């Protein structure tokens, strides 16, 4: 008698077996229908392409200084001129992007990984574990960035990309940890997670099979916004002298070099390109982030 109902309530067979579209697949399709998100992706890929493939676009090496040709205005040989060390500015711009993107992406991913693990443990187990872990997050959230970066610089006797990534991650994970805790607490109360327990799934299965896959949307949105934020942060820190060494090619560094009255008013070729690259990168990543959010959470779309 149970089978008799198949005709009116079940999905009718359409001959060949049709495989369903997974939510990720659907999200991807929605993403690809969003013109801004696609534009953002294209721009970002283009930026990655020109930075990673920098040697294809310039035959200068980023470390080939020409002390006899410093502060040169734009010319055919140097479309953006040369800097005070005689480096080709276009070359520095392209190679500098590598540094910016490396810092932003690795810091973004690491922050999220740490945040997810920390927030996941805190949110899933709750109780005193959660309480203790969140108190620690409170402390870290209020921890002064400047103290941290100067401390690490002084103690490890170094500065550079690795230190910058470390500092960014050390100061940013608490926020993502707290956020992910909220996500996990919300998930923990979802019927399908409770349901997983009632069918006898263990803790780890519940976390990895049921909870984590359902954070993918949130995570990808968070990563994209984090990356956008860190591109700006790297530039800002380098700009005020707390980030990368000034001779390392980076967009923040180039901007910092050119951020004085004389350069700004008379040499726009020095500061406009890095400023545009920074803004363009952040903009494209933000478009992607928006697109991801709309794709994963279609109800939010207006």
């Amino acid at each position: 008698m149970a089978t008799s109902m198949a005709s009116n309530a079940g999905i009718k067979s359409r001959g060949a077996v049709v495989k369903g579209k997974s939510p990720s697949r659907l999200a991807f399709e929605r993403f690809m229908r969003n013109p801004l998100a696609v534009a953002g992706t294209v721009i970002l890929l283009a930026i990655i392409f020109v930075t990673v493939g920098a040697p294809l676009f310039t035959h200068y090496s980023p470390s080939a200084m020409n002390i006899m040709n410093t502060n040169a205005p734009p010319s055919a040989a140097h479309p953006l001129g040369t800097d005070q060390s005689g480096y080709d500015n276009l070359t520095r711009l392209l190679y500098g992007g590598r540094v910016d993107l490396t810092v932003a992406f690795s810091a973004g991913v690491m922050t999220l990984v740490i945040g997810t693990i920390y927030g996941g443990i805190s949110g899933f187990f709750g109780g005193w574990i959660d309480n203790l872990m969140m108190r620690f997050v409170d402390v870290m959230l209020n921890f002064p960035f400047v103290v941290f970066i100067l401390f690490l610089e002084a103690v490890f006797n170094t500065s550079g990309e690795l230190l910058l990534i470390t500092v960014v991650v050390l100061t940013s994970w608490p926020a993502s940890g707290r956020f992910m805790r909220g996500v996990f607490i919300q998930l923990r109360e979802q019927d399908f997670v409770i349901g997983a327990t009632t069918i006898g799934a263990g803790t780890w299965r519940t976390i990895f099979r049921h909870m984590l896959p359902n954070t993918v949307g949130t995570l990808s949105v968070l990563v994209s916004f984090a990356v956008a934020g860190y591109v700006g942060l790297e530039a800002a820190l380098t700009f005020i002298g707390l980030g990368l060494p000034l001779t390392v090619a980076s967009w923040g560094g180039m901007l910092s070099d050119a951020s004085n009255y004389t350069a700004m008013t008379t040499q726009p070729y020095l500061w406009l390109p890095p400023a545009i690259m920074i803004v363009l990168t952040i903009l494209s990543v933000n478009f992607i982030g928006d697109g991801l959010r709309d794709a994963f959470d279609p109800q939010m779309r207006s």
Partner: protein
Amino acid sequence: MKRKKALFSAAAVMTLSTLFAGFGGIGGAFAATAHRAPIVNGGTMVQTFPTAFGLNFIPFLSTSAYTAQATAYSFDSILRFNRKDQLSADIVNKWSVSPNKLTYTFWINPKARWSNGTYITTADIKLGVDWLLSTSYNKTDGGAYGYLLSNVAGVPKSGYLPDGQTPSGFKILGPREFSVTLQQADAAALPAGLAAITPLPAQILGKIPMSKWKGSAFDLHPWVGSGPFITTSVVPGQSITQKANPYYVLGRPHIAQNVWKVISVDVVNGDLASGQVTIAGIHAIDAAQMKKVPNLNLSVVPTNGFDYLGWRLNNATFGSVFSQVKFRQAVEYALNRPAMIKALYAGYGTVENGPLPPINFWYNKALNGTYAYNPAKANALLNSIGMKIKNGWRTMPNGQPFTPTLTISSGNATIQRQADFIQHFLQAVHINLKINPPINFNTILNQLNSDANGKQPIQAFLLAWSLSNDPDPRGLWRSTDNLNTVTIDWTNPKDPAIQLNDKLIHESHGMAAYNINYRIATLNKWQALLNQQLPENFLFDQSTVTAYNKNLHGVVFTPYGNLDPQKWWLSTGN
């Protein structure tokens, strides 16, 4: 916008002989700006500090160089250095020295008055002396100038006396006459110490215990002074406003108001162009662009200082190479310093081959042209000490790889570029110099300070000194000097060259040095020694480029600063 790091600055000293002999090595070389129009009184001029200033304005108290600059406008010392870099009359207009060179007698200018009109007396001088030697002053962090009077008779070894106690060497001989007796004769005693005695207003500060001076109302805002401009208001972190002192001993200033404003070096050019700032130092690299600004004049004067590349001679890893004179000479030949000056300072700088800049009166002209850029000679020298080339890079004489590292401070792009260039040129002679990521300046100091065993990570470093009026090598160059240990490391007492160095320095300020020719000869010998030994690799001296509004006249630009503000004036209209 960026953090600009102040370079090391060391107070060096000027000897007496200049004064009496009347030699003016540089006088006239940096003439005052021409003025044909009649002088106008009044107006406001704006000068700048690149970063925030300290808030203690009692003389000698602040450790901030900017505060000291503002304080110097409000309080004159008894004698001043004129545009020829000679000591000349200020609050004191007459002085004499006893035949044994131990007692100096001074007479206060009868016209010397405080800005409120009362006359400056020996009581004010005494207060200034007591202050420099007081426990309160010397026990605070600002007490860095107690040494100025440490040679005065009656000053204990500790260098200070109880508050208000006057040393036996200081005697009041009348309301306008006093004398100072020294413990030992010293050719540099007057310019190195006594000239800096600064009268303090006994009518005000005499009524407050010295222990309460710091942070007192007068300290935060000194409303009475003896200098050309008296502070009228202080906005912490932003500006100090000063008005002309009508009773200034050297004549009432033409300009009615002087403002010191904190303006970042990156913005200052714009404010100069718009006229919001009257006079300010600018980056040499911007000079060409600033020259085009219609309402600005530029002045370029050499600075009395030097940049250098230091090596830790006691370094555990590579010290055996660093301490070889021929290695350091090879480095000196390997560096194309004129090219570096052109790239770093748009050509506004001077190559230096010794511890004194060529503009200095005491400079040994025989040093000119030594160590011209010559990579072949550098290679020959390196070969001669057994540094063979293996896989393109030179090795230690024992065949070990030679990979010294250079440590530089963060936050200063110019220093980092300098390092880049040095690396570039040393690579050309097959020296594989690596540049460490820049680190905090304080960390560098700390590591240099505690490097007795050569185990600290610093192997080579870039630093700069700015000297003041007289190049007394004491304090920095003697093997026993603390600063030598820290920042030069040329201290091995068994090295005959170092023994000679110490002997020459000692002779340059002894009794015999009261003879100017003797002193010149000694200092020349000393410079030649350092030129040959190169305890460090002397690089160059960056010129000071000052931009100022065309309506500002009468400024005296010298390597020691812009002098005689009381004679500056502002024309109206533009």
